[in-house]
């Protein structure tokens, strides 16, 4: 792996605060770390540790006060709004705790919403099979379970074959079994499509399946662990 691939995503001295004066709250206080290309990275931390804010800044939907993020050598802070949109369009996939699917499009069409953004999308039928949604492809979101809806949202994010897949508490609204199914899917996708995955989660157990675990507290990186003995999602217990 080249040096650039090792520092595919690099976060340097990142700071971010909300409010001003007495109500000012520092959310990120000089954060530094890097993620290698194709790595499955988990951001762990309690509420208010800044993990969602960090994910939003990586995703280009929020900006930092100081410091920078570079992806594959390109600094995000130097990109204007249009270029940021293009950056998200070409390089990022987003999965949220809320599935945020389009209610009057069926499963396949919701995935096509992601595919449309890519010049070289994955094969949708093949992806539907991977997601285990092929037989449900004509259903509308309200005909699906929570887990199935999250699969669709993952499908929508992954279909454009993004360099980075950002997952914000993807299992936060799901039960244990469904959560495991989703984690297995993300693992499978990571292995199959070699995307860099950054996942924000509360769930400590998930760290065991990650290549790289970054623990945050009070807006700082407390620990950055490279997991040499990771286990498969199927083996996870919590």
């Amino acid at each position: 792996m080249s040096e650039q691939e090792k520092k595919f995503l690099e976060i340097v001295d990142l700071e971010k605060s909300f409010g001003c004066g007495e109500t000012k709250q520092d959310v990120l206080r000089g954060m530094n770390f890097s993620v290698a290309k194709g790595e499955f990275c988990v951001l762990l931390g309690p509420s208010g540790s800044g993990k969602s804010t960090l994910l939003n800044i990586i995703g280009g939907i929020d900006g930092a006060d100081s410091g920078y993020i570079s992806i594959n050598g390109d600094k995000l802070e130097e990109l204007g709004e249009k270029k940021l949109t293009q950056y998200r369009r070409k390089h990022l996939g987003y999965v949220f705790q809320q599935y945020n699917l389009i209610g009057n499009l069926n499963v396949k069409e919701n995935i096509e919403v992601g595919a449309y953004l890519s010049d070289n999308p994955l094969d949708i039928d093949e992806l539907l099979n991977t997601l285990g949604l092929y037989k449900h492809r004509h259903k509308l979101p309200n005909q699906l379970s929570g887990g199935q809806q999250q699969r669709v949202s993952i499908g929508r994010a992954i279909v454009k074959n993004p360099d980075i897949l950002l997952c914000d508490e993807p299992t936060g609204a799901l039960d244990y079994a469904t959560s495991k199914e989703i984690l297995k899917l993300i693992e499978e996708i990571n292995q199959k499509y070699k995307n860099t995955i950054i996942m924000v989660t509360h769930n400590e157990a998930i760290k065991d399946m990650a290549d790289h675990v970054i623990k945050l507290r009070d807006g700082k990186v407390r620990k950055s662990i490279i997991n040499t003995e990771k286990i498969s999602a199927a083996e996870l217990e919590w």
Partner: protein
Amino acid sequence: MTKQKIKNPLRKRIPRELRGEWRKYLVVALFMILTVGFVSGMYVANGSMMTALSQSAEKNNLEDGHFVLKKRADNSLISEIENGEKADIKAFYTDKAKSELDEKFPDEFDVEFNEKFNAEFAEKFNTTFEEQLKSALLAQGLDENSVSAMLPAAIEQAKASGNYQTAYDSAYKDAYKSAYDEAYKTAYDEAWDKILDEIDEEYSDAEEKYELNDPDFRAVPVNIYENFFRNADEDNDLDGKTDGSVRVYAKTNEINTASVLDGRFPETENEVAIDRMHADNVGVKVGDKIKIDEKEFEITGLIAYVNYSTLHEKNTDFMFDAIKFNAAMVTSEGFESLSAPVHYGYAWKYETAPSDEKEEKKLSDNFMKALLTQTVVSDNEISDYLPIYANNAVNFAPDDLSSDETMGGTILNILIVIIAFIFAVTISNTITKESKTIGTLRASGYTRGELIRHYLATPVIVTLIAAAIGNILGYTVFKNAVVSMYYNSYSLPTYETVWNPTAFLKTTLVPFVIMFVVNLLVITQKLSHTPLEFLRCNLKKNKRKKAVRLPKWNFFSRFRMRVILQNIPNYAILFFGVFFVSVMLALAVGMTDTLSHYKSSAKDLMFADYQYVLNSYEDEEGNVIETSDGSAEKFALTSLQRKGKNMDEDISVYGISENSDYVNIGGLDDLGENEVYISDSFAEKYNVKVGGTVTLEEKYENQKYEFKVAGTYDKSLNISVFMPIEKFRGTFDFEDGEFTGYLSNTELSDISKDDIATVITEHDITKMCDQLDHSMGAMMKYFQILCIALSAVLVYLLTKIIIEKNENAISMTKILGYENGEISRLYLLSTSIMFVISDIIAVFLGKIIIKFVWSAMMADYSGWIVFTASPLGYVKMFLFVLISYLVVLCFDFRRIKKIPLNVALKNAE
């Protein structure tokens, strides 16, 4: 392998969105289809009709103008008029004076000279004779005293002997001839010089009056056509009573011909073709018989004269009258057989057609100047002069068609703006609802432009579909409806439907652009939030930091107030919609009220039940026309013009008898120099205040009058000016004792029909209301229904938005245990309160707006009708809108009932 680029899947949402909300879109689309359809129909009908009118003008050889002379013009006058040159008025005056002088002078001179000469000669001869006799006696040697004593006897002797007479005759003969020749020449020259001075004075008046020295004058060569007519009585149901008047023309192929809409032109003396519109109005058809001037005619055809697209009896009539007035064609034998006096009408056509209206007006001005001089020098008089551009009978219909187009276009545009805002609000709510999804899409890389295009698609598609269907209906159903509406009002020729690209643009492109721009602005503003703000559902620009403090009302009242505060933007649109409906309703209700008020007050506001206008105040023998009816009162009347930017209005100037019983103006007899009273309608229409001045002009002469307004008179429907009759005579060069007619509350039977020019009765005042009611009454009723429907649609859409916006809260209140009735009290009652407030304000504002619109509209017409909305009218306007709301309220109640409990749970954060 190259994969095919996937089409934007968001577009698949659009048909589903349309299907999912089909009721809403159907209502909007139907409304747009009907509006676009009607307006498109109007444009197509108008365009086709305008084309038909212009083709008819060419085919039927429409005049460029006409004038009516008191006497028939001979060939030389016609030829002079056709040249378009001014007559040499000075030469005319001089020649006329010379021939008068040559005719009268010798006799008058002889009488005067002889009388004077004879008296002077006798005295002079006697003195000379006496001196000669005295000299002869002195020569005989007599002394002075003896001669003096003998002289009388000698004279007597000479007279007796005849010597005196012989000498007298001889001397007279010699003296008379030389004295006569000398005196005649001197007297003739003196008289002629005096006449020339008078001519100079008269000519300088004429110069000013007829602008004879106008340097801009250019001769306007024309072709003149005889277009004689008779104004006769018509009895269209053969009951022996006069039903109205008819203007009868002899059939001609030369000028102002007609189109046949049914039947054929007359061919024999007893056949007549009459105006199609009039026939429809009075219920006669081809084959029926009518009496004209007591003579029976068979109707062979229903026609539309090219110069009578509206049946204006007089050009100054406020409104045409197709019920009591008719235009008819008979054969020349039929024309000769009628007894009503012939009006010597002449139509003209310019040899070189003017290129535009400005040039046309200039040509007409020059032609009129020349015509005036030609009629003066041929001892004739113009009784009417009307260029085509000022002819209401020709222009009223096309002008009305154009103003209908403008009004239709404006209404369409306002409606589209309202619908566009409703769409925008709906979409804005959808965006709020889909905030997280939009956030996800934006976070995934969807550009703002892609989402703007996506949300714009629905209104644009609905508009385009509605416009397309509307245009199809416009060319078929609505065009026919509009055409039949026009045929119901105007005497129009047959037409062919003409493709109208302007109609298409105005009913498709303009609504599309309005819809596009309004929604683009609203959606762009709404989508200006960052992806994160969408993901956090944080879409309010101005976050209300603190809740508005409310008084200590009960819970329900405070809750309702919160609902109102939360929905202020929606209520603002609701108000705008209700206001727009109210403006239209104010016109629909107010016009009916105004006409019926005008009609009912017409009798009270007439000076007298009968206003007799005489041809002259003297009959053929020169006797002043008197009546034995003691209550009748003489008045004088002339018509002047008030020149305006848009139109020149004819003003009736009355000279009123002292202490008049009919025109009771207190200070009229004490008016100062140049002071007059004006009618209230004059003051209102032209915003003239007491103390101000009004400038009026002679219609055909360059003569201005400036009057100071001493007061206003409220009992007159016309635009009038009042002054005492004596002052009137002085101002307008009337002779002592001259007058125009009689005011009377009873019919005057002792004045010969031949001496009466016209009788103005209540009908003349109210005929305009009858015609307006006939032409527009039904339309106003449809208009009222349309307003109610529009109001219902607006309310339906806007209350839907308000309920949808509060769906979560309503669902939650259900979970808490509130019953549907209570929820309705919370949500529907607040909307009802706002609606009623909006309705009340809109009704009053609507009335104010339409009053301004009415005044602006009336400024383009002769006369004045005050806009009147009765209290009942206000109530009607209020109720019409309220009824539509009450209907929608039932739907809203059902809608609230149908909101499921789980909405609140599903959407809980």
